[in-house]
């Protein structure tokens, strides 16, 4: 089949691929046997995503280390509730498991929402749209010549912004949209692809992601504090520094109990303390201490970084590339910022929730569903020039590397 044949075919009736494998016929047979079960759009989705519960839940194909993230959170919190809470409830207050439980539930819910929500994927252009855009672009049409990257310039709030053409999705990407090569989708307001969460972070799930890392930093700091207090209180049971201090209350006319508790933390790091002995008697607590100690700094740092991004209405992608930092020229400012920290925060975190554009549970029109048996390959052959498809894919890879 040459490219001319593709152009003459009415795009409304998609042609079936010439090598007709048995599965294609099998699907046709299924159609004839079960005419009342049209296919849903998620079943022919071209990106690298996996769908569950008949399209209600979606994840990226590479779930990354999401099971590890979930496992670490659940195990650390579980150890905390089982081994530390009883002791702390007895010696301090019963609010501790309540606060811890609330934070834990919050963290898990926001993590699942970040992972399982559509981040703002843009559906690919229909063949008609792609053909219309191709007509508007001046193209030399030479198959062996590598076409230059297609860009379009728009003026947004008196700032020149370049829109790039996406060769996979066959459209000009809207501003702040980027194509994620791991998920093979264009994502609106693309922030980054987070392996810990196993999904892209974009326009629709950025607020979930932000809430997740902020609540996680509170949770890890809380557990770290409680575990440290637990060990410190146990150290008081032995003949430690703190026990000696407690023997002479007269020297400390002010609230010496608080001071003792504060100093007890240092007793853990002094060489003469009983921490190594304590750790041997309380291995779960030691495990929690190690995990929390390493997580709290990284998560706190990440939360701080994202708070800065939210306040200046930037994405990680833009910050890393330095799109608006003025490196590329003078007078380059972020055109999307509202110039007010409060308004920026509100618009990013409390703005209206945009709908999912991919309509994964919608039904395919019956004429399309019959032809899309060879799922995932219906779009590229209908592009105007099939002979430069390989070139186009290579170029797209190069373009997606540069952003």
């Amino acid at each position, binding site marked *: 089949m040459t490219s001319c044949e593709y152009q003459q075919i*009415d795009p*409304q009736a998609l042609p079936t691929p010439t090598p007709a494998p048995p599965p294609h016929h099998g699907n046709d047979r299924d159609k004839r046997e079960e005419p009342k079960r049209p296919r849903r759009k998620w079943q022919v989705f071209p990106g690298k995503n996996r769908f569950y519960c008949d399209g209600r839940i979606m994840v990226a194909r590479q779930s990354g280390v999401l099971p590890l993230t979930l496992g670490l959170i659940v195990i650390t919190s579980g150890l905390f509730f089982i081994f530390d809470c009883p002791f702390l409830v007895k010696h301090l207050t019963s609010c501790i498991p309540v606060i811890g439980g609330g934070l834990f*539930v*919050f963290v898990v*819910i*926001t993590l699942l*929402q970040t992972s399982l929500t559509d981040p703002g994927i*843009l*559906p690919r*252009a*229909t063949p*008609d*749209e792609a053909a*219309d855009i191709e007509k508007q672009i001046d193209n030399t049409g030479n198959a062996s010549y590598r076409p230059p990257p297609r860009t379009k310039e*728009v*003026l*947004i*709030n008196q700032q020149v*912004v370049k*829109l790039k053409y996406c060769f996979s999705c066959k*459209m000009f990407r*809207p*501003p*702040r949209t980027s194509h994620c090569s791991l998920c093979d989708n264009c994502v*609106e*307001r693309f922030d980054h692809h987070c392996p810990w969460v196993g999904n892209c972070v974009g326009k629709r799930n950025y*607020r*979930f992601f932000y*809430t997740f890392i902020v609540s996680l930093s509170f949770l890890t700091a809380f557990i770290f504090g409680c575990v440290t207090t637990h060990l410190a209180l146990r150290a008081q049971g032995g003949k430690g520094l703190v026990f000696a201090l407690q023997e002479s209350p007269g020297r400390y006319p002010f609230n010496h109990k608080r001071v003792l508790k504060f100093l007890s933390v240092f007793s853990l790091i002094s060489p003469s303390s009983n921490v190594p002995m304590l750790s041997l008697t309380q291995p779960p607590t030691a495990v929690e201490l190690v995990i929390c100690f390493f997580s709290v700094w990284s998560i706190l740092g990440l939360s701080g970084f994202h708070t800065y991004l939210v306040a200046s209405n930037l994405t990680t992608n833009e910050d890393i590339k330095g799109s608006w930092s003025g490196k590329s020229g003078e007078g380059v400012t972020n*055109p*999307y910022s509202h110039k007010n920290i409060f*308004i920026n925060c*509100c*618009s990013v*975190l*409390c*703005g*209206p*929730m*945009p*709908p999912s*554009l*991919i*309509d994964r549970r919608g039904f395919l*029109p019956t004429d399309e569903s019959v032809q899309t048996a060879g799922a995932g390959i219906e779009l590229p052959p209908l592009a105007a020039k099939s002979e430069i498809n390989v070139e186009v894919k290579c170029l797209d890879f190069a373009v997606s590397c540069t952003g």
Partner: protein
Amino acid sequence: MAETHSLQDMRQQAAVAAKVFIQRDYTKGTVCQFQTKFPSELETRIDKQQFEETVQTLNNLYAEAEKLGSQSYIEGCLACLTAYTIFLCMETHYEKVLKKIAKYIQEQNDKIYAPRGLLLTDPIERGLRVIEVTIFEDRS
């Protein structure tokens, strides 16, 4: 929606002469707005003013959906406090406006565009990228 589909099926039997795509207008940023420039292919079919009015009304409706006002802030804060679980039960403001838009497009198609052999496709079916105007062959 079922009506539109049967209408579309009927229309597919009438030959599609051309399709015009009204692209997005990004001059105000990432908010959903469409270009109001009148495409030359529709000159013989419809009034310039009529068409521009339709697009402008759509633009206003999308601006209303994405407006940063007290209602959206209250919705956002409440959602945050409930760990965003209310999105599973409640219809958001944006979705309500999208329904209004779908109704408006249906109405415009029935009253103005269908008699002239044109069909507007709801932009949400095209990922809010374009307004697709299908021009059918003039049978007269």
